């Protein structure tokens, strides 16, 4: 049974940069547009059902913090890094680099998985914060333009409805999703067969299974946080 693992600081910092900082543009653009889309959709439905749209900022912010922020960010992160991790480790297995590490007394788990885990959790949490901020700002701009809300009114409503525990739970979700991605992707890489087709299959499976795991874990966490 495994008792401890070693954190390689240099590799972890590299992964934090690669997984976190380099994923910023895709998260920035995607979540910005999600924020805009939510304002439009919620405004349409609230006008249809409730005949007014005063609570659109509040609902969109709550939905973003509690669900869409961490989930969409980590699904994007999965598509960007999950396949990469699985393909990299799979290729290392096929080309005997994993065996070479073992022969040099370097544990492949310590060298490959732990830094990616640290990098991925860092990326998931920080990108979720950025994603929520971007979507709220995007939503604010559209709400001011389309709904005639003032910026003060928009953010007052948002901060009234979004509570501090919601933020903590949101970050916890991000941390869990950020853990699932590298572990599932690394597992796919380590169990990769031989040949380039097997590496491709490992990469595909990493994205599919990580995405599924995130969606299932989101339900479980939401249930634990809000339904019990």
């Amino acid at each position: 049974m495994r008792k401890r693992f070693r954190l390689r600081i240099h590799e972890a910092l590299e992964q934090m940069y690669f997984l976190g900082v380099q994923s910023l543009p895709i998260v920035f653009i995607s979540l910005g547009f999600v924020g805009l889309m939510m304002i439009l959709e919620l405004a349409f439905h609230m006008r249809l059902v409730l005949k007014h749209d005063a609570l659109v900022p509040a609902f969109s912010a709550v939905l973003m913090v509690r669900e869409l922020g961490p989930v969409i960010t980590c699904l994007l992160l999965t598509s960007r890094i999950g396949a990469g991790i699985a393909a990299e480790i799979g290729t290392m297995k096929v080309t005997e680099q994993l065996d070479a590490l073992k022969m040099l007394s370097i544990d492949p788990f310590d060298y490959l998985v732990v830094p990616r885990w640290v990098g991925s959790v860092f990326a998931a949490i920080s990108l979720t914060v950025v994603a929520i901020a971007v979507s709220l700002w995007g939503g604010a701009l559209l709400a001011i333009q389309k709904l005639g809300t003032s910026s003060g009114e928009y953010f007052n409503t948002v901060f009234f409805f979004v509570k501090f525990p919601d933020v903590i739970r949101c970050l916890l979700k991000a941390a869990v999703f950020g853990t699932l991605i590298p572990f599932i992707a690394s597992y796919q890489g380590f169990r990769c067969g031989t040949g380039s087709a097997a590496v491709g299959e490992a990469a595909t499976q990493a994205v599919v299974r990580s995405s599924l795991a995130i969606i299932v874990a989101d339900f479980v966490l939401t249930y634990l946080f809000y339904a019990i």
Partner: protein
Amino acid sequence: MISVKQVSKSFGERRVLNQITMQVAPGECVFVLGKSGVGKSVLLKLMVGLNSPESGEIHVAGLKVDAENSQTLAQIRKKCGLVFQFPALLDSVSVFENISFGIRAREISVNPSEIEAKVREKLSLVGLNEKVLGKFPTELSFSTQKRVSIARTLAVEPDYLLFDEPTTGMDPIATTGLNHLIKKLSQELKVTTVVVSHDIKSAFAVGDRMILLDQGQIVFEGSAEKFKTSTASLAKQFQEEMF
């Protein structure tokens, strides 16, 4: 000493090694010969626990190779160096880092200047100069990658050196240089060496003893002189290749 007792290994329905028994004495250089796919590389990997045998036992330096016992396995691997058939260099780091990794991991040296000196020494042993130190493996030719991989293995100063097809993809000059190096390590430093190959010329030039594998079994075991007169059909085919 490396001791292999009644070792068998199958992949699916195919039995690759069948009740293999062999020994390699300290300081000895043994060539394991055979056609491609006969299980030579598998035998090497079994010796360092990268694969597990179905039956039989392997002992290295008196320690039983057991994939389940990670502590003993770590001890065995610290004594061994394995040069893979393909270079197996970590392609995300430079040549310097590839060679120095093992030195740091095994704590052979922690002083950066000592580590650098060791890396340069091992690199010159395999006929490379410091120009390649900052390069990444993908920037090097296959032959140079292979030499870097040998330097990486030598850098951890193993008592047991295992080579998997060391001369594959190398030019004749590099092959001769590598043969001299294996001989030197075996004779001067008393490193116990097992070379898996189908390069019969290298086997004659370097090996103290030869083992010929065919259909999962040892069909010949003995000196180069004895090999020349062997009547085993596969040995005869190898002799024709040589003479």
